[in-house]
Each structure stands twice: as structure tokens, then as C-alpha cells.
């Protein structure tokens, strides 16, 4: 019985790779947001050099962030707002 169990859950390099991909996937946001530690950055960069799928996921995540930061239009502040703020402050003094 024990041997069957072992066969069903073999410790192969693939399984290790899968764990690595999972870890790297968890680090995607940290990387694109500049929040990863030096160790995490090294681990991440080494992995995506060897793993096409994680490399592509990283590209997509960067693209998504770039769409918001680079394409979302800013609304224009109404000219009257500063004056309204100052007036309200003076009123409530």
C-alpha cells in the first residue's frame, strides 16, 4: 500500500518546478509594484529566465499595471474648487 501511495505522489523535478511557479506567481504583484526584497527579486528573476509561462505572466501583469498608470485619463479639477475650499474654511472659523 505504501509503495502505491509513493507512486501516486512521486517527488519529481516537475513537482518542484510547479512549486516554484506557484511561489513566483504569488510574487508577481510584489515585483511589479517594487515591493519585493532583494532575495525575492533574485529568486524571481532566476526563475523567469528559465520558465516561459511565468515570464509571460510577468509581462501580462506589467502590461495591466501600465494600462491603468499610462492610459487612465485624469479628470480635470474644476477651477472653482480651490476658492470653494478656502471660502468654506473661512465660513466655519
Amino acid at each position, binding site marked *: 500500500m505504501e509503495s502505491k501511495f509513493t507512486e501516486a505522489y512521486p517527488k519529481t523535478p516537475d513537482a518542484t518546478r510547479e512549486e516554484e511557479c506557484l511561489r513566483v506567481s504569488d510574487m508577481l504583484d510584489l515585483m511589479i509594484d517594487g515591493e519585493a526584497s532583494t532575495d525575492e527579486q533574485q529568486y524571481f528573476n532566476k526563475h523567469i529566465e528559465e520558465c516561459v509561462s511565468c515570464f509571460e505572466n510577468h509581462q501580462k501583469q506589467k*502590461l495591466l499595471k501600465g494600462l491603468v498608470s499610462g492610459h487612465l485619463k485624469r479628470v480635470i479639477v474644476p477651477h472653482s474648487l480651490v476658492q470653494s475650499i478656502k471660502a468654506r474654511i473661512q465660513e466655519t472659523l
Partner: protein
Amino acid sequence: MSDQTGKQLSKEEKDARFEAELLPVLDPLYNFAYRLTLDEDDANDLVQETYLKAYRFFDYFEQGTNAKAWLFRILKNSFINEFRKKSKQPAKVDYSEVEGYYNTDDVEGESGVATTTDMRTESVQDLIGDEVASALNALPVDFRTVIILCDLEGFTYEEMAKILDIPIGTVRSRLHRARNSLKEKLEKYAKSMGYNS
């Protein structure tokens, strides 16, 4: 942001410092208010309310500390505590109510949102901007908030945790789910436009 009691300022000093340190944040603050309320008049009211509170508590604001994060925090609290209750609009969906819907991580194998090579004309840029805005506006307000704070305003996770009053771990998981949800909406759009790579 600071709880250090400031020295008493004369009214002139206070007004001058208020203007120099807090008013430069008006543009990002108004944009944040607009993205929360999705209405220009409401954003106007919310920003005025925020500055009024900031002025009232300005003696407690420590010079040189993060004025932008402080104002964003006041605005976000005003939005939650007063504004949403006053609003006649139906309550916007809250993150906790929809949490279960956003647990999918299966985004692999789908097309990227857009390629950049053939998208350099202004009209296409506008189109993308409109689409990003409408996808973002369709997200629950808590998801929208973390994406705006992080991607548009460039706050760190630590600053976001302080603004939103939640642990950094929650900032991370909320941001992750928010991005998955945004990605899903934009991928639908990209596919409808024929980007299937």
C-alpha cells in the same frame, strides 16, 4: 498622520502652511474622489469636506510628513462614514459581499489585454483609456480603490495599509483579486476587438 501636538500657529502661519503643504495634493485627491463616487459634484463635495477636516486638525499635522497619504486617509474615511450613507444612490457593492466571486486565478492562456505596436495613434489611445476607465468603474469600490492608490497614485503597500486601515497582507490579497477582476474585464474587451493571441 502624526499624533504629536503641534505648537500653536498664528492664523496667517496656519493658512500659509495649509496652502503650501496640502493644496498641492488637490489634483490627485479630486481624482481619487471622482473614482470613488463616479460623480463630479459628489467628488467636489467630498474634497471640500476633506480639506475642511484637514484644516480643523492641521495643528496635529507634523510638517514634512506624508501630507498626501494623510489627506487620502481623511477622504477615504469621509467617503465611508458619511458620504456613502448620505448618498441617494443604491449602496455600491462592498468587497466583502463579492469576495467569493473573485477567487479565480485561472487567467493563464488568455490573451494579453492589448499589444502596443499598432496602438500608437491618439484615437486608439483614447479608446484604450475609455475602456480601462469603464472596466475599472465596473469593479466594486474596494477593488477600485486599491488599484487607484497603487497604480495611479503610486502609494506603497505600507502607505495603502495606513490609508485604508487594513493590514499589509489584506492590501496584497485585495490588490491581487482586484487585478484579476480587472484583467478579466479587459480580456473580454480585447477578445471582442479581435485580439486573441
